[in-house]
């Protein structure tokens, strides 16, 4: 059984970067960002239901460890206090309902608006998908 970090590297790290940052405009930053999504129940579900997460070539157990690594290690201080780790049964249920019925871009946009307005999330969350030059 591989460690959660190695599972992250093999399944996500190429695009998201070895430590959770690569090109912020092309790939969402995870490092010191991803924890904000756990402020919202739909944000917690969103991270598992993202198609590339839901369809990843991982067992439910490995994916659960991977997600907890991403949220609690890469997310760092952005994870709300008292956030409970993902459980295997939760991940197993959510990944079987991938977000294929909505626009991923609009779903994310609406969520980060709420996170920035109401949960003091960094406006850097808007970097992903931004077309203007820095």
């Amino acid at each position, binding site marked *: 059984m591989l460690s959660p970090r190695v599972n992250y590297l*093999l399944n996500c790290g190429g695009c998201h970067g070895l430590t959770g940052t690569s090109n912020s405009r092309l790939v969402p930053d995870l490092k010191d960002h991803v924890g904000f999504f756990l402020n919202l129940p739909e944000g917690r579900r969103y991270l598992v239901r993202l198609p590339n997460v839901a369809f990843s070539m991982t067992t439910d157990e490995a994916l659960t460890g991977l997600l907890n690594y991403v949220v609690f290690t890469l997310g760092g201080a952005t994870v709300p206090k008292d956030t409970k780790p993902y459980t295997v049964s939760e991940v197993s249920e959510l990944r079987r309902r991938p977000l294929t019925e909505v626009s991923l871009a609009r779903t994310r946009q609406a969520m980060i608006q709420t996170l920035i307005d109401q949960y003091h999330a960094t406006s850097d969350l808007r970097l992903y998908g931004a077309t203007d030059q820095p």
Partner: protein
Amino acid sequence: MTSPFDKMSEQLTRNLARFSSRRGFLSKLGLALLAAPAFPLLPVARTARAAEPNSVAAKTDFELHAQTTDDTKCNYWKYCGSDGVLCSCCGGGSHTCPPGAEPSPISWIGTCVNPEDGKAFVIAYRDCCGKPACAAGKSCWCDNTDREMPTYRSSLNNDIIWCFGNASATYHCSTAAMVGEAK
């Protein structure tokens, strides 16, 4: 008279034709069809293998011929998933870009087995970008495929040029950096 731009375009087109996924896909499809009766679960087996890279399961063709001494050869152990021209032939190293080229922040990640200790290591394959394609000899052009999958798993397709995340998307050469042991 041929302009330098024409030459470059021709070179790029020729390289694309040589290394494009069309050829790779057809050859892999052919191989998969041939091997299907013997290994009906090949993609699954590869997934299982990726999940346990330290297993002593049958070695890949690459692993049977891998060496640890010459990083300017395609069979150097860290290059098991390398697809492109080696930066070590172009004034760079196995994991460093030649002067004037920038490493891509986006990479392709796989595992390779070091034949000396039999351990699997996580390898990040990065393209070096921002300079015209390196004009190294044929022996420096690699098309290794360990843990690679064709387009139906685009994140595991190493025919993609990863320079799209850079300021200049011009491909120069490929590197393979060891990230750590795969365990």
